[in-house]
């Protein structure tokens, strides 16, 4: 197990290098110049050139590339052009809200998907099938920012139950502010989760081991819990892990709708201002994050499934 984890961690090095290179190249290919963007329309060419020199943008591309990579290795992402501080400081400030949003979303996604899938698979009732199908189809057809705006209007503005935006200043306020955005982000991955989990539950409910359990006279509730859910849940873990990648994208968009001061809004501003270092740092960090979550998923999976844990 230890060896396996080490191998997976080592495997991350080429992945991070790839992501870093890709984000570097893409930023350089994108039109626009950060110095010109920073100084505005009225700046003289001399002033722009001077700033480009100060920011190191006049160096050969290959030097810039290796400086960027070298920085990554020591955890130095450089300075932000527009915020006048190090990228690391910016991240410390903005990252917690985003990670918190992702965590809250993940919890909501599980809390919505698991009972619904169980209801559909265990009862096989027409009502549950209709509810589930309408729900997944509706949610899937609506973009997150639209659902977000809708929830803001209905639950925020009209009833005043939840804050319409912002992040508050204490943990309690944070969580309270994250309820609506959390639901919105969760909804982006719910359709896939519900569908896969329902399918996995149906599979295990028609499996031979479930038949045998029934033939022993075990109650339906015990069969659902200890036979169907135990087996389907293991499949569910890996599906959930894969969906975390989508969660990242959802969170970044939804932050902007709810004015949450996370890295989503930071990324938006940085892209518009061609703030290379910030964009590159965020790309690399999220790349690493997703890969780490996959690794974590595999570890959890192997702990939960005795066939993997004890080596089948």
């Amino acid at each position: 197990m230890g060896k396996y984890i080490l191998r997976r961690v080592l495997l991350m090095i080429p992945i991070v290098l790839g992501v870093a290179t890709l984000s570097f190249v893409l930023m350089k290919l994108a039109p626009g110049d950060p110095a010109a963007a920073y100084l505005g329309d009225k700046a003289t060419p001399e002033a722009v050139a001077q700033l480009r020199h100060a920011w190191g943008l006049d160096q050969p591309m290959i030097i810039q590339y290796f400086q960027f990579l070298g920085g990554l290795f020591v955890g130095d992402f450089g300075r932000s052009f527009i915020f006048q501080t190090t990228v690391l400081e910016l991240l410390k400030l903005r990252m917690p809200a985003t990670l918190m949003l992702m965590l809250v979303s993940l919890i909501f996604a599980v809390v919505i998907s698991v009972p619904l899938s169980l209801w559909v698979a265990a009862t096989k009732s027409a009502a549950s099938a209709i509810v589930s199908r309408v729900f997944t189809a509706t949610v899937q057809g609506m973009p997150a920012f639209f659902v977000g705006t809708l929830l803001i209007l209905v639950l925020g503005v009209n009833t005043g139950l939840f804050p319409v935006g912002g992040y508050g200043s204490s943990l309690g306020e944070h969580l309270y502010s994250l309820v609506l955005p959390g639901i919105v982000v969760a909804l982006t991955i719910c359709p896939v989760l519900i569908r896969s989990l329902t399918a996995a539950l149906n599979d295990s409910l028609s499996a031979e081991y479930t038949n045998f359990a029934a033939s022993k006279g075990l109650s339906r509730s015990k069969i659902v819990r200890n036979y169907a859910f135990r087996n389907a849940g293991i499949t569910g873990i890996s599906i959930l892990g894969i969906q975390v990648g989508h969660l990242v994208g959802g969170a970044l968009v939804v932050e902007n709708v709810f004015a949450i001061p996370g890295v989503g809004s930071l990324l938006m501003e940085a892209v518009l201002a061609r703030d290379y270092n910030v964009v590159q740092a965020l790309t690399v960090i999220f790349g690493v994050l997703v890969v780490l979550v996959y690794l974590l998923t595999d570890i959890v999976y192997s702990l939960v499934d005795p066939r993997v844990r004890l080596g089948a």
Partner: protein
Amino acid sequence: MPILEVDSLTVDIDGEVGRRRILDDVSITLEAGEPMGLVGESGSGKSMTLRSILGMLPPGAEIVEGEIRFRGTNILTSGSRRGYDQRIRGTGISMVFQEPAIALNPVMKVGRQITDAVAEHKGLSKRSAHELAVELMDRVGIADPERRAHSYPFQLSGGMRQRVMIAAALVQEPEVLLCDEPTTALDVTIQAQVLDLFRTMQQERGLGLLYVTHDLAVVAQLCQSISVMKDGRIIEHGVLQSVFDDPTEDHTRKLLTATPRIDDGVFAGTGGDASAGTSEGAR
């Protein structure tokens, strides 16, 4: 009074090509303690008969006629698939499935799988359930049951898994045991051992046994009577010896001649000491 009576059971199933009759007027009478073989070619309805008796027909199947009586009481409470007296399962009638590799929950320890149903019914503590599992595992011939009870199915051999399933089927002391080709998935040498176990258990507990197999040699070793199925019907039934000696149906004769050892070795052994091979029969 017979322990189990299947009376004019008729079952239809909705399939891709429309509604089809898969069991047609099937009647079986099993006396308490009687071991009966149920044979017939593939698709003749043997498995469906067993599944009907446990109220576990596949989706789309419907009992259109007939009764299934356990100790004289109809357990088909309303004739439909849902109307089945589930209290009978495990305690009155239980079943050993064909493939132990897929019939055990892959992520649950086998000890717990043996006793989870009885523990639920009788409200056994974890501890006494475990002790019961160990006792049963010992009874079905699993060495080192204390340790094996904590194994997962994948950690056991095929023969051992089948013994686990037998233990789970017998733990609630049912009076009828249904077996659906319980040795076909096993190695030849293991088949003989498991078959021995069935015979011991049947005799020790006076079990009514309904044993489905393709293998007439197995029937000869284990059973007193035999029913032959074809196309969803019982076409022949009788005491083992008389059916084997003088089958009334051509189809039965064909089945008999398809089994190599019927004529000599096994036959003489119906009374007890059958030692013939167990696996070379027609498949």
